[in-house]
């Protein structure tokens, strides 16, 4: 087995510790940034939903401001956002490189996307159900947590899956500007030093990660659809 691996993936096998660290770095970026994206995106998506014209907390000012801000951020390509955010990143986490430096642009680059996904998911919830909740005298907060977020779980799981997969892609891209992780590993050796086996193994690792996310997401969506 080991000989076989060394035959086919020589450049990876001599850098195993570095490869493992790249995987760990990618997972760290993914999970830390993902956690922030999840909470912030959910909050903003809910805010969009309740402040819109027919929302339970209709508020044109908040809605318009949020709507425009999200559009602006979504139209900036991630690779440009990475450089654009350098000063801000330095200010928040003290450094603009490495895993820590990648978190801020990853979050800011993904939250707008996820907010829209959340908004779309919650738009699927029948207005009649919201009305029924209001007729029961439920508070707005109660309706958000016990109706929107509860009824939306299957659709939110799908939205989170799509976002997580796009986040994995961004993580790899962040690697290109010195964030570390699998993207960095692939560029440093596979691209710059023509070690094709490194590229293949990195791609395989990323595909596996995406598949795992997809499977978990689908399972949650299916288990919560009644």
């Amino acid at each position: 087995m080991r000989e076989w691996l060394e035959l086919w993936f020589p450049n990876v096998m001599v850098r195993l510790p570095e490869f493992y660290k790249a995987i760990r770095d990618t997972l760290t970026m993914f999970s830390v940034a993902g956690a922030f994206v999840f909470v912030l995106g959910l909050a903003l998506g809910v805010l969009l939903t309740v402040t819109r014209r027919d929302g339970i907390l209709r508020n044109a000012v908040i809605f318009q401001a949020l709507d425009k801000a999200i559009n602006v951020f979504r139209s900036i390509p991630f690779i440009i956002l990475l450089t654009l955010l350098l000063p801000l990143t330095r200010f928040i986490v003290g450094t603009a490189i490495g895993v820590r430096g990648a978190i801020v642009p990853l979050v800011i680059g993904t939250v707008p996307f996820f907010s829209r996904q959340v908004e779309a998911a919650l738009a699927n919830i029948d207005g009649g159900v919201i009305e029924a909740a209001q007729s029961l005298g439920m508070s707005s907060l109660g309706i958000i947590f016990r109706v929107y977020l509860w009824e939306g779980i299957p659709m939110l799981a799908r939205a989170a899956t799509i976002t997580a997969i796009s986040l994995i892609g961004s993580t790899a891209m962040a690697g290109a500007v010195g964030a570390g992780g699998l993207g960095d590993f692939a560029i440093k050796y596979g691209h710059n030093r023509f070690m094709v086996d490194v590229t293949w193994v990195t791609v395989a690792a990323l595909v596996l990660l995406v598949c795992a996310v997809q499977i978990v997401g689908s399972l949650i969506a299916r288990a919560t659809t009644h």
Partner: protein
Amino acid sequence: MIRLEHINKTFSDKSGLIHAVRDVTLRVRPGEIYGIIGHSGAGKSTLVRCVNLLERPTSGQVWVDGVELTALRAGELRKARKKIGMIFQQFNLMAGRTVFQNVAIGLQYSGLSRAHIRERVERLLSFVELEGKANVYPSQLSGGQKQRVAVARALANEPRVLLCDEATSALDPQTTQSILSLLQKLNRELNITIVVITHEMSVIKKICQRVAVIEHGAIAEENEVLGLFANPRQQVTKDFLYTTSSLSGVYPLVREDSPVVRLKPGEVLLLMRYGTTQVCQPLVSRMSKQFDLEINILFGDLEIIEGAPMGGTAAIFHGTPENIKSALKFLEAEHITVEVIRDARMA
């Protein structure tokens, strides 16, 4: 119990202002089942949603159980809404919660203990005859069962009033009957005042005591159900009544000029509607003898509304002009509403 004072509701949309409710003033008495009937777009839903302020009237006041809802602040309004149940055409259950959780949702955070909530939900489910369905999801229920869950949910906070917006319009006739019976049961046993919105006269006939007919956002006429059937004043009301009665069969025949309704010279085709007291009298045979008329009955209809008989007859009268005139006078004296549908006396 419910008092609406000069309610107006306008919507503005791209094509301009829509006056959905126009100066509606009405009272619903404690313990009664009050019907509101109107065609699609007449403003029924908007009006009933004004009662619990799901829709805030552009002007006017809403009073429920002695409290002016239009003067309440958000928190107080929420509390007041708990005492005003509402059910909908599309049931509006939460798909992600079981029957039990759907019914219990209005009880959470209300200071009741878990055991108390469980006990009340079980009692409600047995009231709506859904014992054994507590842990089922709505997608596994029939339309009628879903509406029963919605009724149980609406009753959870022990409301004094129940608003029903087309609650049976998505159901088949048999299921409609069973839901209407359920509404009657909770009206009698729990003394809940009910407002029923519908476009079907049969629903009004089955359970309501009083009814308002609404057209273009305004009340066209309001009456006891019996009175409305015996003496409809507005055309829109007559249209609604005809839809429920087999007598309405005469109109298409007239329109198509069917041989059945073709008159010989000197004949008239009359539509007679009886109130409660006259219906049992053998009026037709009496007229026939008394005025020497030949009366050919085309349609007859007899219904029981609120326990009292109501009916009508469409018939062709054949006789001398004087005798027909006397017969019409006789009918008038008997307080029978007569409509001359075809008249060949002049011809």
